[in-house]
């Protein structure tokens, strides 16, 4: 599916279409992760420095506050717009729909709400893409879909991302925003996705292929403790929350005051848990450069 082409212009038509058939929705034309409620919708208040930002300007600034560099949460379509060469994303594995394997109370309703809220059919989209001329397999999680948590479908899409990458000898690039970790509502089956995805990463690794993992805000729990932390390269966006047990759980368990910036990307970098923090405006270039440097058959130019 070609996505970039429909990012602008056809909003209302698409919105209507999705409202009636929320089950099959994967395309949403606009980045609307940002709250639309302030000041008649023209201005957005930065949650970090309270700076008022003209919304139209946010798109040019990659949804980053120009005053304090706060990185707003963005949805998968905005991420595609920022990262992928225009018109190159081809979504795969769209035929997988979450079930309610445990008959967990309220789960179908939560899924329906998440679909309605995000226009996505699940918390992660996967497919083939080109980034600065470099073909790769790409997966992007959306925090607004049940906190980016991993159930069977997310686990399967991640696994297939690596499997197709192996078949086609491609690098894999994964943006995780799994603040919800492994999804509770699928019980032990969600837990097993940690094994399944980690194993797929390792098989891809054994073929000598590149895996670039980008940790976006927040990446926690079973997502962090499986595929997300197993990249050859671990990049993070500034300020992203990264860890196993979330800060509230740590605080409650230890009854200790958490250190300043606990589990921030900066904290993770300082403790040796990631390779690099990359500002969103540079992310596409940095990913493109790393992908390029891992192309087969590069020779000295002189």
């Amino acid at each position, binding site marked *: 599916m070609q996505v970039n082409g429909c990012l602008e212009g056809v909003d209302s038509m698409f919105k209507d279409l999705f409202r009636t058939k929320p*089950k099959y929705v994967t395309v949403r034309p606009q980045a609307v992760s940002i709250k639309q409620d302030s000041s008649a919708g023209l201005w957005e208040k930065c949650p970090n420095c309270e700076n008022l930002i003209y919304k139209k300007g946010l798109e040019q600034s990659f949804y980053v506050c120009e005053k304090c560099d706060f990185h707003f949460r963005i949805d998968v379509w905005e991420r595609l717009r920022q990262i992928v060469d225009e018109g190159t994303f081809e979504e795969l594995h769209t035929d997988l729909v979450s079930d309610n394997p445990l008959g967990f109370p309220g789960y179908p309703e939560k899924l329906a709400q998440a679909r309605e809220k995000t226009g996505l059919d699940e918390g992660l989209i996967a497919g083939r893409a080109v980034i600065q001329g470099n073909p790769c397999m790409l997966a992007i999680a959306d925090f607004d879909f049940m906190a980016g948590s991993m159930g069977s479908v997310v686990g399967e899409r991640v696994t297939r991302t690596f499997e197709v990458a192996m078949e086609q000898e491609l690098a894999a690039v994964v943006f995780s925003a799994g603040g919800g970790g492994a999804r509770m509502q699928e019980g032990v*089956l969600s837990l097993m996705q940690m094994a399944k995805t980690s194993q797929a990463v390792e098989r891809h690794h054994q073929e000598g292929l590149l895996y670039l993992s980008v940790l976006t805000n927040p990446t926690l729990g079973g997502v962090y403790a499986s595929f997300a932390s197993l990249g050859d390269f671990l990049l993070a966006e500034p300020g992203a929350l990264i860890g196993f*047990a979330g800060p509230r759980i*740590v605080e409650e368990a230890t009854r200790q005051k958490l250190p300043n910036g606990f589990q921030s990307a900066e904290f993770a970098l300082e403790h040796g848990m990631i390779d690099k923090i990359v500002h969103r405006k540079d992310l596409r270039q940095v990913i493109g450069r790393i992908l390029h440097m891992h192309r087969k058959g590069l020779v000295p130019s002189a």
Partner: protein
Amino acid sequence: MRNGLFEWEKPLYELELRIEELQKFTADKDMDLSREIATLEKKAEYLRREIYQNLTAWQQVLLARHPKRPTTLDYVELIFDDFLELHGDRYYRDDPAIVGGLATFEGLPVTVIGPQKGRDTKENIRRNFGLPHPEGYRKALRLMKQAEKFQRPIVCLIDVVGAYPGIEAEERGQGVAIAQSIRHMSFLRTPIVCIITGEGGSGGALAIGIGDRILMLEHAWYSVISPEMCAQILWKDSSKAPEAAEALKLTAKDLLSMNAIDEIVPEPLGGAHKNHQEAAANVKAALRQALASILPIPLDILVEERLERFRQLGQWQEKAVAASEARK
């Protein structure tokens, strides 16, 4: 819980006391009460089955946490010989919340690993209530790689409510330690048997839970999250843990039906804590059988089958391709 007894066991306990009394009376006073005793015993037998075969998910969780339930080292002592504990992750320190080492199982050298809860308060504090830090998982992985080098089977005895959610644990990469353990354990070229003996909580259990045969004790639980935390997150009320336990489908029977485990190991009536010897004998028999079934398998095939098993786990619906074509 009083005297190690749960509320739901009390009627049975009182009945058993009464039977004992009558038996004593018979002996002391030389009176024949055998008919009364027989009646009460029938009633006790009925109650026993009523109580222990209809445990709710939450009651099973409580059984799995019984303070007198055999711990990893109890099983090691009762099942293996010549246990030689090995320490340290070679990076930072030795984590007493995970024990591991060399042992023999009916003459066969194996590597045994498992989280260790304390058997009293003092030991619990030393062992951090059996909640491992990253160095515990790194020690476990080091010992597993050692086992692979010497083609020793690995036996993991799993009883852990979760990896420790502490500041230092996070600073030292709890998530990374778990992920790396899952990743490397999956590809180890040596047979692995995992036995969930008590609690199987989340990634902290899965980190040492990738096996060729995965067994689970009758009253153990295994899930993505503990019922209390699940209730806290979903309903902002950890007192709803019993409901969460039910919803999570975390009992051995549930897991067997989802193919997440291979076999249920029976426990003594009322739980493993009632009779350590019997519990250990059951585990030993199941382990013997599990090892016998995987030891002959060539390593290439063993690892492939291990991976294939996890590859199959998950459940979803498949949307008709036509529907997805239509929206392009």
